């Protein structure tokens, strides 16, 4: 659906030149929710703004729905942009227009008839749950309500792609949650492809199918959220996940506990329905190894349950090895940490 090829964006010239993106490649499939995570200044904002050419790349191609946007005339670009909705961190609503008129805005741009506008806007108001606020001005709404107007407006022209530029960063946790739910809902309902950028891992964890980690103008790691989240490879990725699953401290402490018999600390990762099975207890009963759970998380990544336990196994060294092998046989991921 979206293909970014060798995207480079420089600002300024000569010695004042800074590079925001350097030869970045990215592809997003139709109907998926794709997250881009990065620290501020990593280039994620430039990246998402290049997708609808609000920012024109210095070089490279931007393909959306089979069209190279960088090759288009102003007029055809304007037409293609109608197939790409966008929502913003600061909502960017017209302060002089009511909720109704804000949502009708993209339809009026293409001279839609009054009755069609009314029907469409009322549908959208119902979708985002703002029927009663139709005549209010943005200044009278809460942040969450403003973002709902932003979403309704972005959907008015029935786009194929929705770009979310830090759409929940200005919102409190509960409101963030309800907006993410709404995004998930419209993604399923309209098979809408969503690209979102954020600096918050929990946003990715909650609704994204795939994720790319951006650092210093390039993608350093990408893949299914479950893979990237549970087995981060790049230090920047680990950095983002540390907040969610921090175990370095605990492991260090666990290592210091002297145990009379031999022990090993392992990270055991469950994914999918296995998360809820009694695999661990069955195996230790057979191998006669004891264990202590040092740290653990059981949660979900989008719809996929996962568990990650830091476990210290105690017992006969051979039995510990057998335990580890059995766990792997059962389809769990095991990493020996110490």
């Amino acid at each position, binding site marked *: 659906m979206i293909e970014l090829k060798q995207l480079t964006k420089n600002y300024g010239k000569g010695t004042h030149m800074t590079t925001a993106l350097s030869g970045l490649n990215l592809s997003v499939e139709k109907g998926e929710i794709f997250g881009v995570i990065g620290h501020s200044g990593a280039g994620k904002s430039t990246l998402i703004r290049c997708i*609808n050419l*609000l920012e024109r790349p210095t070089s490279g191609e931007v393909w959306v729905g089979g069209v190279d946007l960088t090759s288009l005339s102003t007029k055809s*670009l*304007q*037409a*293609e*942009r*109608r197939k*790409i*909705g*966008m929502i*913003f961190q*600061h909502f*960017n*609503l*017209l*302060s*002089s*227009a009511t909720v109704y008129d804000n949502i009708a*805005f*993209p339809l*009026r*741009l*293409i001279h839609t008839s009054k009755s069609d506008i009314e029907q469409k806007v009322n549908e959208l108001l119902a979708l985002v749950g703002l029927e009663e606020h139709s005549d209010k*001005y*943005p*200044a009278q709404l809460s942040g969450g309500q403003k973002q709902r107007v932003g979403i309704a*407006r972005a959907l008015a*022209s029935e786009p194929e792609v929705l770009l979310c530029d830090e759409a929940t960063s200005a919102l409190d946790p509960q409101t963030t949650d309800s907006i993410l739910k709404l995004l998930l809902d419209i993604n399923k309902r309209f098979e809408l492809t969503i690209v979102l950028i954020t600096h918050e891992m929990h946003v990715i964890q909650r609704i994204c199918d795939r994720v790319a980690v951006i650092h210093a103008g390039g993608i350093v790691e990408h893949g299914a959220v479950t893979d990237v989240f549970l087995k981060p490879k790049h230090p920047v990725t680990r950095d983002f996940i540390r907040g969610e699953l921090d175990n370095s401290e605990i492991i260090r402490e666990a290592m210091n506990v002297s145990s009379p018999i031999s022990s090993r600390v392992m990270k055991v990762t469950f994914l999918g329905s296995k998360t809820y099975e009694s695999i661990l207890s069955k195996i230790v009963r057979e191998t006669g190894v004891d264990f202590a759970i040092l740290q653990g998380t059981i949660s979900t990544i989008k719809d996929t349950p996962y568990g990650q336990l830091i476990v210290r196994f105690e017992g006969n060294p051979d039995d510990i090895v057998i335990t580890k092998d059995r766990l792997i046989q059962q389809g769990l991921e095991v990493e020996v940490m110490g």
Partner: protein
Amino acid sequence: MGGLDFSLIDWKEIATAILDTLKMLGASAIFTFILGLPLGIILYLASRSSSRRVNSVYVVLSFVVNILRSVPFIILIVAMIPITREIVGVSFGVLGTIPPLVVGAAPFFARLVETSLSEVDRGVIEAAEGMGASTQQIILRVLLPEARPGLFAAMTITIITLVSYTAMSGQVGGGGLGDLAIRYGYFRYEKEVMIIAVVLIVILVQFLQMAGDRLVRHFTRK
């Protein structure tokens, strides 16, 4: 202040002066807005363009606007006499004051328009661009409505500036309250007429300011 005698005042003359002031004000304001608004929009757009050529247009336009704004109005009236004659046929009377009034006020108004437009949230313009709006649509559907309170404030300031300009137009026999005040008060030492003319001008300015503030408040949504 002994010796003030209001009984000898020719009220008919004052009524004519009021009417003349309103005529000059109305006509010059309309033309100032008609010329100044597009000029302000062009200044705004040209200043933000990424094209070098358009930027140089801005530099030239901006220079011309600054020159016109720095010429004292009284000199502008005199300097413009031949041009005024070309445009309206006469260089005196109510009609003869309108071209210099417009040329004096339109660049001023254009600058105020440019400032109001540049206060419109960049993000909103970008959102409209992202929705496929053309430049014309952005001007008509985003910039002007969003800047509306600022534009009304600019109009108020401009029209009040025009009031003080019309007072100087007596130099070309323009008539009006300012002319009356100078003719009677300065040349004939008839303070009474001058006082009444000044009071009327103050009332007019107060009224215009209040009406303008009201419009601004009505359209402010923030």
